[in-house]
């Protein structure tokens, strides 16, 4: 556990970057520091590994004041990932990853084996191990940065806007990778970002800081979104707060209609009279193929020859209501198809079912 106890940082020029910050980052959880530029996120993070020492107060690592630990020793036990990855341009990828094991005096073979294992773990092609950093894309470099931080298996990981410099698609995959890794590794992670979406996606707990280094609110993401502590937090969360909250509502909250799905082998003749304007057509295995408009169905034959409209799906077990809403927007039918882990349709989510679920959720928490 990392504890900030009344920590203040005043720089030489008088700037108060962090003001009497008190909070805990629990072991095995991701604690996110989020806030506008200049609010003291980086300063706070660096006081954990002593790249900066506090002016007042203490930072404790499992109860031990970090200023009592020799900086290089302390740092070798704390992984650190930054925005530009900070890879050593003159070392091959495998040696970059093995940096801390080398510093700890592991023998070369063991350090490299460990590095290869980690490259695999963060989802990198092992062919890249012999390359230099300039030969990698930004997203790949960032994965190497994560692998390097994990190389000596430190219990603590500090991440300073690690995914801000990559494009949104890569960022999403890196975020998911981090959550997957964290599920396996259970590190104590402090993650800095200025992106509230990233904060609520990754954080077990989110600390919102305001300029001057004051802690405005510390809560789990769902509570943060439903009950912002004050106007600053509310404004920082932005207009999309309602939509974001949907991310924390399970897909199971919404009711399904099984009667709107039909196998592709069904004869069209019997379907033309249904009151429903759209039907979700499934293949033999029950996977969605698309939407058929009932008014346009031919008089005879099966659904196999019918032109189908595009569809959106969401996984009820894994996805949130936000994904369900998104999926309804992708279909001309205005409905989303709920699928299981194997991609088989479980039923259809209609707009009515969705708004019913939204009403229920909105009733549960007053913003």
């Amino acid at each position, binding site marked *: 556990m990392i504890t900030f106890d009344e920590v203040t940082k005043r720089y030489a020029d008088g700037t108060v970057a962090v003001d009497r910050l008190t909070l805990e980052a629990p072991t095995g959880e991701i604690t996110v520091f989020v806030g506008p530029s200049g609010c003291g996120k980086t300063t706070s993070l660096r006081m954990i*590994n002593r790249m900066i020492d506090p002016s007042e107060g203490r930072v404790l690592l499992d109860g031990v004041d970090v200023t009592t630990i020799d900086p290089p020793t302390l740092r070798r036990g704390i992984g650190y990932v*930054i925005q530009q*990855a900070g890879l050593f*341009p003159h070392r091959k990828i495998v040696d970059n990853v093995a940096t*801390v094991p080398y*510093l700890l005096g592991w023998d070369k073979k063991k350090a490299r084996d460990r590095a290869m294992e980690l490259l695999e773990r963060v989802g990198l092609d092992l062919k890249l191990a012999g390359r230099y950093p300039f030969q990698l894309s930004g997203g790949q470099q960032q994965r190497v940065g994560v692998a390097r931080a994990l190389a000596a298996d430190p219990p603590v990981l500090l991440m300073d806007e690690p995914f801000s410099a990559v494009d949104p698609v890569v960022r999403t995959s890196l975020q998911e990778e981090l959550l997957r890794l964290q599920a396996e590794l259970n590190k104590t992670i402090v993650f800095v970002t200025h992106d509230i979406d990233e904060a609520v996606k990754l954080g077990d707990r989110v600390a919102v800081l305001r300029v001057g280094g004051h802690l405005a609110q510390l809560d789990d993401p769902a509570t943060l979104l439903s009950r912002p502590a004050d106007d600053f937090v509310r404004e920082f969360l932005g207009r999309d707060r309602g939509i974001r909250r949907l991310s924390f509502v399970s897909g199971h909250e919404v009711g399904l209609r099984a009667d709107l799905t039909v196998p592709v082998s069904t004869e069209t003749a019997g379907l033309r009279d249904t009151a429903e304007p759209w039907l979700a057509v499934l293949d033999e295995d029950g996977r969605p193929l698309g939407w058929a408009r009932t008014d346009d169905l031919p008089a005879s034959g099966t659904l196999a020859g019918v032109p189908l409209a595009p569809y959106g799906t969401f996984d009820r077990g894994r996805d949130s209501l936000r994904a369900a809403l998104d999926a309804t927007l992708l279909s001309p039918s205005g409905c989303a198809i709920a699928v299981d882990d194997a991609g088989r349709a479980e039923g259809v989510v209609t707009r009515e079912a969705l708004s019913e679920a939204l009403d229920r959720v909105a009733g549960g928490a007053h913003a």
Partner: protein
Amino acid sequence: MREEPLVRWDWIGRNWPSIQSLLEDHVVMSLVPIVVGLLVALPLGLACVRWRGIYQPTMSLMNVTYSLPSLAVFVMLIPVTGLATRATVIVPLVFYSLAVLIPAVVDGLGSVPDHVRQSAVAMGFTPLRRLLLVELPIAVPVVLAGLRVAAVSSISLVSVGALVGRGGLGYLFIDGWQRQFYTPIIVGVVLVVLLAAIADALLVLAQRLLTPWSRARGTA
């Protein structure tokens, strides 16, 4: 005598042993200042990076030295190092190479990206290891670029030493000039240019081998 050929090959043949020893002299007198210059520039450059305040004064001093005409400096040194000695030529050339190499070391260390330095700190490098394993290796391309300039100018400046009696291949220029005989001059020019070209090529090769990781700076 009107029909005298531009290059008298027989003269080259007859004088080859002495040309060879002039060449050796030239190589030694241009190489030593570069090597000594590099050995001195490294600690001085590091000091300039560590204590920013001394960089400007050091460079002013170096630039003043650099602006002194080499001949004047050679002459001034004669009472100290002796007439027609290697030292008379080598000492000033060390200073000339310092004027190029100190900024090269400083700029080289300056070329280490801040985020790389920060991440070295964050991973638990001690300052000394950080310098030796991260900062200096990354500075190599810039330092080598400076070394190329220093090497070529050192090779060409040695010739001026001929005016104080010790100039390696430069002797051939004086000899040819005094006798209005072009062959030695041409031999001297060709060998000096060749020497500079070979030194430069070797340094480029060293750069390729030492820094396979540097792409854009590779040809600088």
